[in-house]
């Protein structure tokens, strides 16, 4: 059993997705429980894999169907993706638990089982993208995640289906570009296995085909991760989606794709290829650097809080690219830390937002005026997440940002450093504005009587535990950094 964990973590949600769908037809109430059990089990496997990686200190490799790579598909868990797997599955679990009531209201009784089937499919895709070490298999899993995302978004309010369609067109171009890039690599090497590719590509670095291949792959992934200026789909898609969808997608999807970029650029190619031979990542960093400023300004300009959060998501993903663009060890550590930390921060922000949205039925900033008296826990956790995004220590967001800053200083990337620091201020404006609105302004007392709804215990527990995570993760940054430092390719920097 233990030996099969790398495949089980992907196969289990996949199978359970169909099981949930089928049982849901005759027994709908089971859908939620099946989903939670599956997600919990995935989290359990992720924890076990994480521990196994710590104990064994090397890559756990799994050959599907017993076929040796490079012929068969290989799933591998190493120091890089063990962390991402754990964070992804844990946040998936917490979000599903949190949004139970919201799903019940938004989706309605008849379709909940379909919704949960899609949620599980989404988790399948995300975990699969993380664990696979086959570039084509990655494409398939990326599309599985994307398809379920299209579906999950389309059930939202008016305009959601149109936003989903636009997301889909963007996403298909992205996936196509990625596939094209994989094709180029395949022409050159005849292999699709990542470690095999690294070996075969080592004497092909002069080839223009290779450069074109990487360019297409990066283009595709940049669209999928909503890197500026290819982010156009994200604000619409995530802000028209049902609340329960955006709480699941916003923390996870873009960050997992960012992980894939790291995986491809630094473990399929030699790290110096995309950094120095052809400075693709630094160029991307410069564009994204401008982007995080633009996104910060856009976030301030929004009056809808979810939309504001969407722009913050884009800016935060940009930080990861900035960390990579620093091109050194510290920046890389910062980028990887930020993938994990940002998942938690965004999960907290979106979940807290969803809880308040459930109560107020409005996401407009004016509706949030003076609500902290009525919803102290929800507002406090939201603000906490915001402080973490701004980068106030001791919350975890500070530490990843700090490493990215150190990396940028060491690499002498002054422009990127300036953009990062400026965007910190822009984020501060966003969140302190909300703090001012919710806590330091007298609310209108008109809706006191109507909304008697209380936040349920499970929602409260999820919010509290996510906030606790922000502090705990900040405190254990040192251990995480020493864990991340064991990633093999960091030695090459």
């Amino acid at each position, binding site marked *: 059993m233990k030996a099969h964990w790398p495949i089980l973590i992907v196969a289990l949600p996949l199978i359970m997705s169909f099981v949930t769908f089928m049982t849901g037809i005759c027994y709908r109430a089971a859908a939620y429980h099946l989903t939670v059990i599956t997600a919990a089990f995935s989290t359990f496997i992720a924890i076990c894999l994480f521990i196994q990686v710590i104990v064994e200190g090397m890559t756990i490799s799994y050959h599907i169907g017993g076929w040796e790579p490079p012929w068969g598909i290989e799933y591998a868990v190493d120091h890089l993706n063990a962390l991402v797997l754990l964070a992804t599955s844990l946040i998936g679990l917490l979000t599903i638990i949190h949004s139970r009531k919201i799903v019940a209201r938004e989706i309605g009784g008849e379709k909940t089982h379909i919704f949960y089937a899609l949620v599980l499919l989404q988790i399948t895709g995300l975990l699969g993208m993380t664990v696979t070490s086959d570039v084509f298999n990655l494409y398939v899993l990326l599309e599985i995640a994307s398809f379920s995302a299209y579906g999950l978004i389309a059930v939202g309010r008016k305009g959601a289906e149109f936003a989903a369609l636009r997301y889909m067109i963007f996403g298909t171009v992205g996936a196509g570009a990625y596939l094209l890039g994989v094709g180029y690599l395949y022409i050159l090497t005849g292999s699709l296995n990542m470690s095999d590719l690294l070996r075969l590509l080592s004497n092909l670095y002069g080839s223009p085909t290779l450069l074109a291949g990487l360019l297409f792959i990066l283009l595709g992934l940049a669209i999928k991760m909503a890197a500026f200026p290819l982010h156009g789909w994200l604000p619409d898609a995530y802000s028209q989606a049902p609340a329960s969808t955006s709480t699941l997608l916003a923390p996870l999807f873009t960050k997992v794709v960012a992980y894939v970029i790291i995986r491809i650029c630094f473990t399929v190619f030699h790290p110096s290829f995309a950094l120095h031979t052809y400075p693709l990542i630094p160029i991307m960093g410069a564009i994204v650097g401008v982007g995080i400023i633009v996104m910060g300004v856009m976030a301030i300009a929004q009056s809808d809080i979810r939309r504001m959060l969407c722009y913050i998501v884009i800016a935060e993903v940009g930080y990861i690219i900035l960390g990579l663009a620093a091109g050194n060890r510290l920046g890389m550590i910062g980028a990887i830390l930020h993938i994990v930390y940002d998942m938690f921060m965004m999960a907290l922000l979106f979940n807290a937002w969803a809880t308040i949205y459930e109560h107020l039925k409005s996401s407009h900033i004016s509706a949030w005026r003076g609500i902290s008296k009525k919803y102290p826990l929800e507002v406090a956790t939201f603000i906490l997440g915001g402080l973490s995004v701004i980068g*106030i220590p*001791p919350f975890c967001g500070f530490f990843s940002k700090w490493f990215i*800053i*150190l990396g940028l200083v060491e690499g002498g990337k002054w422009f990127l450093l300036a953009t990062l*620091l400026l965007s910190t201020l822009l984020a501060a404006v966003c969140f*302190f504005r909300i*703090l001012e609105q919710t806590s*330091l*302004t007298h609310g209108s007392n008109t809706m006191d009587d109507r909304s008697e709804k209380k936040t349920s215990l499970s929602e409260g527990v999820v919010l509290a535990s996510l906030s606790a995570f922000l502090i705990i993760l900040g*405190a254990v940054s040192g251990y995480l950094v020493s864990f991340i430092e064991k990633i093999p390719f960091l030695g090459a920097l």
Partner: protein
Amino acid sequence: MPGYITLLPLTAIFLPFVGAALIILTGERKPNLRESWTIVTSFGTFIAITSLIPYVLNGQTVECHIVEIYRGLHLKLKVDAFGLIFALLSSALWFIVSLYTIGYMRSLKEHNQTRFFAAFSIAMGGAIGVALSADLLTQYMFYEILTVSTYPLVAHKESPEARRAGRKYLAYLMGGAVFILFAMAMLYTCEGSLDFHPGGMIEQEGRGQLYRITFLSFLLGFGTKAAIMPLHEWLPSAMIAPTPVSALLHAVAVVKAGVFCVLRVLLYIYGPESLKTLELSFALALIVSLTIIGANVIAITQDNLKQRLAFSTINNLSIIILGALLLNPVSTLGAMLHLVSHGFLKITLFMCAGAIFVQEGKEMVSQMGGIGKKMPYTMAAFTVGALGLIGIPPIIGFLSKWFLCLGAIEVQRTGFLLIFLTSALLDAVYFLPIIYHAFFQRSVEGANINQEAPFLLLLPLMGTAIFSIVFFFFPNFLFHFQELADGASKSIFEGWRK
């Protein structure tokens, strides 16, 4: 040194946070219990810090390693003489002021007291954390906690004006924090460490320009909190906060934390030698001197008592920095003592201003004629505070200014000596009229009945006034401030000869 001693600084820092949690959990339902949490935690913190004095006086440094982030980057606490001075000052005054705060908030029936007391407690935790940090990273962490937790206090009134003041406060301080972040990153990249070391830790050989930029950046960062002109704008606006906040945070904890950080950077990161060779000390001294004079001139024009006190604070903060910039042991001793004396004196003045506001609802100096007859004890304490700040014996303010002037003479900087003296003169210009009018002018309403402030308000302000006098005669009374400051300045200038 017994092992549990290393836990003391940790306790001192975490108690306020625990207190804040308890305050929030208790909430509005049981105000008495809630207020007792404030008193208990402030007293506990005070005891924890006081019990560290003997070890530090023996020349030991108490270190407490929390967690390592990366090579050369730690979160750790260290209690040295300088840090202990600030920690003692904040915790002692916090305990005193917490009584005053309770009296003040209840008398005015302020809203949202739970949030107020919780934020207050967190802010104090931040201030004490700043004092006891062993390196810049830890210090930055507490510095930011202090910044953020003070924001709801500044905007406590929830009026548009208060919100504007809060925004201004945040804009200045968050903007400053970004510069600190940058400077810290530069420093770490150059030195591979952020630890404080008495007398400086940098090796600036061949990287002079880099270190000048870093210094400027530090200054723009910590200088905002220390209200060096032209970065002082937020402080007078922040006076809209309830008076206990102005008293403890905007006269002691927050702004002093800024000055404390500036001194840490000057004396424990750069050190006298580098400051001299990089030609930074003189340039900064000029800026600071302009602030000293400028703030006092503006203070004369202010009619609002709290505004006037705010500009006086700006003036005194810069005096402390100037003392350190003269780069000799005597003036540094004076600077550290002035940190203490200004803390005690200014808090007295603010508490008096608050008591007057509670009793009479008056904020303007021009309305305060004859108030000395109505509130004799309050105004007596006010007089002590004001005279102390001018530098008249027998009040501790004289002592610190005396050392500052001695230091200026020792390094033969007559110009800076003149600055100190002029500033004292200007202090007199705006403080003495208040006292004169209070006691010798007939009140407009004419009523000469004794309308003294409630006991809870009166006790703390009398206490600090009496302490200020006692400290003049016995500078080492209870807290050993002078010995600590002496030890700190000696350790900095050890092995350095002009």
